């Protein structure tokens, strides 16, 4: 590759100060994923998904309060279909994650946890806590199906 002469690197005629070539910032082509980015986008995605969950909750209330059995059966049929079960799994994780990361946002709003290291460790704590909470929600469900006592 031929070396091109930069006008910046060349000192102007009679210039007192020489201008050294400096690295260009930001390096747009260099872009890597970090945990904080992952939790940030995950907060947004779970939020959008939970909006759909809230619509589902609205449908549930309308189906129950319609006092008609076929409306109720329609809703519960969808809920117990494979798609419905997958959505419920998604909502279990989403509510756990969104609440955990929401607490992190509120801590930021109070004014703590802005250091890069604490932002990173906070992300990891949120991920672990939300997975644990999802597991607990699952465990409680199984406990109802197969009670120990």
């Amino acid at each position, binding site marked *: 590759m031929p070396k091109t002469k930069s006008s910046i690197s060349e000192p102007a005629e009679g210039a007192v100060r020489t201008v050294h070539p400096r690295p260009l910032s930001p390096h747009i082509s260099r872009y890597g994923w970090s945990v904080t980015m992952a939790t940030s986008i995950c907060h947004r995605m779970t939020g959008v998904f939970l909006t759909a969950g*809230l619509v589902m*909750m*609205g449908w549930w209330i309308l189906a*129950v309060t319609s006092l008609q059995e076929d409306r*109720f059966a329609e809703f519960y049929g969808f809920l117990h279909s494979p798609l419905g079960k997958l959505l419920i799994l998604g909502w279990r994780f989403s509510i756990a994650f969104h609440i955990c990361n929401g607490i992190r946002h509120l801590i930021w709003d109070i004014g703590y946890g802005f250091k890069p290291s604490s932002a990173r460790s906070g992300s990891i704590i949120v991920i672990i806590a939300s997975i644990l909470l999802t597991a607990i929600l699952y465990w409680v469900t199984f406990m109802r199906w197969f009670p120990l006592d």
Partner: protein
Amino acid sequence: MARKNYQDKSIRSNADLMTHLRNHGSAQHGAGHWLWQRLTSLVLMGLMIWFTFALFEIRDAKQNMIVVWMAQPLNTGLLIATIGLGFVHAVLGMQVVIDDYIHHTSLRWFLRLSLYGVFGFLGLFVVLALLRVSALVTVFQAAQAG
């Protein structure tokens, strides 16, 4: 002069008005958006914990039992709060998502207004349905007792 034509307290001069008309600068309701997002989040955290436990209680119940459960005053109130505050929180969040990703102005406004419309009407329907069934059950129980 500017205030007379444009009923907005944030606009104090013609320069402010021009800034506003050019879509530059603050729209003057960012702080309210921020605060409502946080206030609703605090209340919703408690409501969601309650709702999770409630769902485990009634998940195997038949429709008429769920109706009776929904008609209890405390449950009706908490459900209305969950739906109402949840919809406010969801609309505020979805609005940010739309504003961030939809750069086409008229499409953005179409989606925003659809969001307000859909969630406004759905919220109204759900709240009215809850109040209706609550009243029906109360009347029914009173008739049985009397």
